[in-house]
């Protein structure tokens, strides 16, 4: 069936602020869907409260509604604009729940709006665990034995019938929230109570735990003609028992025979076809008993999900884009494969590489939280890596993690005590894969590790090969001794030069030099959906050590943009927004744009954003090879947050041009000592401070600047390990803890300005003129990290004099730091006296917020300024904002039951929303203002 011509105007519902379990993958799906619909000439309106998204950008949709995701907001939109259909499957469970709620209130009927790409009965069926279980059995598939419970008593009864271990799964919750394993009877009551409370319908499923079975996810697409294709099959390295969002996953399936796979494929198609009638994407989870290959169905998500984003990046097949086309009536056989452009979209991608997805956790942000992994998702982001074999992909994933690992071990961070390692194999936490390697290295038999971890032995045998390779390397004393073929074998298996250097106890540069001398260089292969069967033009590449290089550099002038790696607290979607805009501006300025990133949830890693995409770790060795191949005019590090910024020294040392602000200026801003000297020179006040290299020095400084003091390591992200302390004892404890976790670091001790106001400025400087993008005043007092503060744009209580001072200091600093592009400056204001706290010479968390609130393309202006092809005066714009915009932080504390909402100098929020208010009498503002000091703790 060709597209439904009656649909001329579509509303897409976004997923709101980022929380654990629902991250920027829905920005990816929403933006892709929007572009896909606009291609068809459809007018797209979009609602989302998250200002850091690309989808809420004028580039993406025709009409943007930055409003809370509520039925009232929907009513407002529908009253204002003729909408023919609403697409709610691109915004995760949040969007679906809203669509269901609006449906219950009769909104869709009232305004004669079609719900497309979804069948509400199917959603209902998928979410209601008991109904779903019955349904699965009725179509002849298997499930784990279970009982539904709506009361404590029913729950107890169920547990008696099933026995332990068992699982509690609350109905209608997100990311496994409130669920968990219960291994012994003593833990059951508490777990049941928590589950019943977590479910909005006070309903839980008590299920037999199939611990240790293998877990799989299939991504499917279905059209109106009931044609179904499987886009990707993902195998979880971590078996059943760990939330798939917290599992290391691999595609294609490594340990699955054709007979087992086809059975799973058949069942998935049968199940999808049985779930109502809708055209779009769907995700189904299965579990297999490795001994018998018995298959049970775990769950179905009849919508685009987190794993759809991963599957799209893993295969090159743009699931959200195609799902959007299916929603407006197209059939799969009427659409083209977006990568080859010549073959059909009705097909199943095939991979000639291996991908590994590795979650990124941020436990250090949640003090006292339970670090063990289970049914409830706890990771805050993820990376994907691509290699020509499993080990290469696995080690590249480790290198992508942004946690100072050089690969899977062999980097000075191994554990050496067998008991500790064995304990961590049993009590699963974020480091299990590393501990598996440690255990193998110490000679723990594969069988024992398998017993403890239930990880399929194939993976263990693979990792064991790394141990063998490392033992073989021990035969050689220096890199020059390593034969070419063995050197190549190490690289083929994903070893970084730094790992080889550590194993040989030599300098990394020596290894790199020898490697290059031997001509062992990365080649680039294309992700093309079809294992090279058909010709593809898609500029989507990954590196490996093979023979033919498919990424042929053009003669164009090029600019490389470094992305921000995995989402973490303090570094999230906002930098993806900045990168996408940077790429657009680079193209506009006549350069070829080259994107480097490893985060599969992002829009910047869509193959049709930049002229060329390298899906690679933001890791120097990988980047260097790209730069040596592409020879770009420059590299932009300002847009990718701290991750990108961190590499600027190496980029400069290697002789490449950093676009915009110089490395030295960035250093000047980061180095507290030099920066304070500069402030002194410019006559700008700053809190008293000192730099300490040991505890005694820290105590001396603290007493000089007087308690309370703010203590932190230098060079950190999101205020990591930053604390307010009030006496010598606390100070000593904290300083020691910093040195323990971050040796080689220095400690900064700052005077803490109690009860001071905080404000921040984002600005652009082009060498002649400073453009103040916006001044934000925080509702919460100083001491709470700016990322966790509610920021009001423009200021609402600061005096004109203070505002003038902030502008003056911004101008002075921008000039003195010789900024070319973006700068963010944070201020504390006490008794109308303005202090500068810090300056960040790069895109900040608030840059997208200001751009959205004022509706000015600041990122575009900044990128042109960085490139030097335009000045601020070349742009005309008008700030459009009535009243105020508030950036409201959103937290995921409910994922960590034992952690209180305590805010301090270290950032803890996972996402943000934007709220527009007319004036200060707004009840939303008044509530925030009233509670402003409530959560300040340390």
């Amino acid at each position, binding site marked *: 069936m060709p597209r439904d011509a009656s649909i001329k105007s579509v509303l897409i519902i976004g997923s709101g602020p980022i929380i654990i379990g629902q991250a920027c993958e829905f920005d990816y799906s929403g933006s892709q869907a929007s572009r896909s619909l606009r291609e068809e000439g459809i007018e797209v309106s979009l609602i989302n409260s998250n200002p850091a998204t690309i989808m809420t950008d004028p580039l993406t949709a025709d009409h943007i509604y930055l409003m809370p995701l509520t039925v009232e907001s929907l009513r407002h939109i529908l009253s204002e604009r003729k909408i023919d259909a609403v697409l709610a499957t691109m915004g995760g469970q949040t969007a679906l729940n809203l669509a269901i709620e609006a449906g219950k209130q009769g909104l869709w009927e009232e305004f004669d709006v079609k719900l497309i790409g979804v069948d509400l009965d199917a959603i209902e069926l998928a979410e209601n665990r008991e109904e779903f279980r019955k349904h699965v059995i009725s179509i002849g598939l298997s499930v784990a034995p279970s009982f539904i419970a709506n009361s404590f008593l029913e729950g107890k009864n169920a547990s008696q019938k099933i026995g332990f271990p068992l699982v509690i799964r609350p109905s209608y919750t997100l990311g496994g929230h409130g669920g968990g394993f219960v291994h012994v009877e003593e833990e059951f009551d508490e777990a049941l109570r928590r589950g019943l409370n977590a479910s909005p319908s006070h309903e839980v499923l008590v299920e037999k735990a199939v611990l240790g079975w293998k877990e799989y996810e299939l991504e499917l697409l279905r059209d109106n*003609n*009931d*044609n179904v*294709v499987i886009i990707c099959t993902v195998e979880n390295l971590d078996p059943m028992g760990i939330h798939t969002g917290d599992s290391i996953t691999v595609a*294609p*399936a*490594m*340990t*699955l*025979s*054709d*007979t087992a*796979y*086809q059975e799973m*494929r*058949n069942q998935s198609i049968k199940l999808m076809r049985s779930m109502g009638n809708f055209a779009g994407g769907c995700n189904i989870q299965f579990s297999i008993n*490795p*001994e018998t*290959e018995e298959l049970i169905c775990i769950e179905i998500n009849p919508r685009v999900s987190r794993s759809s984003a991963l599957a799209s990046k893993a295969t090159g097949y743009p699931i959200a884009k195609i799902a959007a086309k299916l929603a407006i009536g197209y059939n*799969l*056989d009427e659409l083209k494969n977006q990568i080859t452009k*010549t*073959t*059909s979209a*009705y*097909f*199943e*991608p*095939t*991979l*000639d*590489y*291996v991908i590994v997805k590795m979650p990124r956790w941020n436990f250090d942000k949640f003090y006292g939280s339970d670090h063990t992994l289970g049914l409830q998702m706890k990771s805050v982001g993820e990376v994907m890596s691509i290699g*020509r*074999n*499993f080990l290469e992909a696995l080690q590249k994933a480790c290198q992508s993690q942004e946690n100072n690992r050089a690969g899977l071990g062999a980097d000075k961070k191994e554990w050496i005590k067998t008991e500790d390692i064995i304990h961590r194999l049993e009590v699963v936490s974020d480091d299990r894969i590393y501990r598996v390697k440690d255990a193998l290295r110490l000679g723990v038999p594969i069988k024992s590790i398998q017993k403890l971890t239930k990880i*399929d*032995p*194939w993976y263990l*045998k*693979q990792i064991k*090969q790394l141990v063998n390779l490392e033992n073989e390397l021990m035969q050689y004393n220096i890199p020059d001794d390593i034969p070419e073929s063995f050197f190549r074998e190490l690289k*083929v298996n994903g070893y970084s030069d730094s790992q080889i250097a550590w194993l040989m106890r030599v300098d990394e540069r020596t290894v790199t030099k020898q490697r290059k001398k031997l001509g062992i260089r990365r080649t680039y*292969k294309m992700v093309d959906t*079809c*294992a*090279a*069967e*058909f*010709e593809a033009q898609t500029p989507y590449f990954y590196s490996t050590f*093979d*023979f*033919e290089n498919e990424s042929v550099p053009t003669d164009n002038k090029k600019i490389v943009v470094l992305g921000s790696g995995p989402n973490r607290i303090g570094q999230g979607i906002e930098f993806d927004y900045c990168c996408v805009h940077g790429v657009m501006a680079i193209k506009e300025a006549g350069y070829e744009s080259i994107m480097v990133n490893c985060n599969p949830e992002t829009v910047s890693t869509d193959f049709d954003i930049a002229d060329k995409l390298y899906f690679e770790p933001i890791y120097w060795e990988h980047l260097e090879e790209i730069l040596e191949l592409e020879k770009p005019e420059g590299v932009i590090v300002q847009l990718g947050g701290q991750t990108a910024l961190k590499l600027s020294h190496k980029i400069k040392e290697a002789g490449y041009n950093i676009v915009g602000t110089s490395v030295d200026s960035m250093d000047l801003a980061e180095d507290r000592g030099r920066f304070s000297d500069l402030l002194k020179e410019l006559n700008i006040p700053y809190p008293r401070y000192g730099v300490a290299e040991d505890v005694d020095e820290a105590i001396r400084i603290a007493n000089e600047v007087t308690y309370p003091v703010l203590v932190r390591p230098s060079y950190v992200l999101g205020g990591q390990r930053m604390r307010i302390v009030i006496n010598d004892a606390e100070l000593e404890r904290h300083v020691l803890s910093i040195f323990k976790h971050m040796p080689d670091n220095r400690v900064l001790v700052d005077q803490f300005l109690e009860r001071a106001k905080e404000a921040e400025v984002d600005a652009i400087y082009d060498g002649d003129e400073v453009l103040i993008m916006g001044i934000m005043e925080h509702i919460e007092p100083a001491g709470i990290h700016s990322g966790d503060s509610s920021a009001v744009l423009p200021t609402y209580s600061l005096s004109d004099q203070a505002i003038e001072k902030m502008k003056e200091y911004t101008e002075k600093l921008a000039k003195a730091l010789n900024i070319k592009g973006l700068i963010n400056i944070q201020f504390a204001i006490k008794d109308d006296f303005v202090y500068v706290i810090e300056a960040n010479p790069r895109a900040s968390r608030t840059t997208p917020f200001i751009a959205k609130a004022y509706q000015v393309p600041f990122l575009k202006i900044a990128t042109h300024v960085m490139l030097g092809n335009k000045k601020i005066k070349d742009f005309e714009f008008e700030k459009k904002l009535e009243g105020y915009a508030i950036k409201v932080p959103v937290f995921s504390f409910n994922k960590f039951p034992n952690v209180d909402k305590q805010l301090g100098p270290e950032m803890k929020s996972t996402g943000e929303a934007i709220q527009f208010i007319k004036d200060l009498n707004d009840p939303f503002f008044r509530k925030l203002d009233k509670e402003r000091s409530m959560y300040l703790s340390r």
Partner: protein
Amino acid sequence: MTDKALQDAVLLLEDGTVFRGKAAGKKGIGVGEICFNTGMTGYQEIFTDPSYFGQILVTTNAHIGNYGIKSAEVESENIQIAGLVCKNFTDQYSRPLADTAIQKYFEENNIVCIHQLDTRAIVKHIRSKGAMNCLISTSELDVEKLMEKCKEIPSMEGLELASKVSTSDSYDMGDDGSDIKIAVLDFGTKKNILKCFVERGAYLKVFPAKTEIEEILKFGADGFFLSNGPGDPSSMDYAISTIKALLELKKPMFGICLGHQLLALANDIPTYKMHHGHRGINHPVKNLVTGYCEITSQNHGFGVSPEAIAQSTKVEITHQNLNDNTIEGIKVIDAPAFSVQYHPEASPGPHDSRYLFDDFIALIKNHKN
């Protein structure tokens, strides 16, 4: 990867292109026509599919051997490919149901393998230059000497191979009391095709490729099945004349792959050698009769001429490839005969097309009434 120290190996193509990699499997030389398969599962089924007889197989999947070898999951008794080219020959496996590892299996079956070479570059080469003869050597590494050997390999075009892989004696399968009797003309049939018939209650008699028609007729079949198999269909005059005669009976007939090409030839539709064929388990096909699509398992290097079909009054198209519009299925107009180019039995591959076996059984039943 095997634990043994890796030996060097060479893959030499007819056009002189040389790829160097490491040896696995049996030490020696393997010769044949090069082809590639893009499936991500089912390597064992592919190795044992008689249609691959005389071919050197390139698998595009990153790892081969990773779930071991299970003796029950074969399409014939032997490995049929003449040699394997893959990225990572992975001897270690974990599947509890498997019986042995791939290295041992290759050694037992005298199959050579070359791995750790740029398989993607090879696929791109075949994609642009077309199918050609080639040779894997894990013993002799002197390219000049090997080139002489390579030149001796006969061209696939005009080569009759079906009779080499067909059963030597006829045999029967299924319940002999069944009222659905199917005569199978074995040109190199896969086991799973026969299984699909037996599962649907049919009684089969499988005949060697060159069986005389009188012999076949003695069985008193209700329907005839033309199997898949290797080689150039246009070189099989014996089969074409048998099928022509059988068509006269106006009894149900079903052909798969080579059987499909033979049915076309018997209706005066010529076949041609494709540039590099279709081999994989993700090929999109549209059923033009029902409008539904199916993901199919394919393995063929020859095709049926679309131009001739367009002008034919004897057959019509029922299935078409959505990637390149090649002919995937035909139906004879004045006889209850149909055929498909792909493999509805799958193994390996999706089971989307198994309805064709139901269709054939239904056709037989209807015809009998």
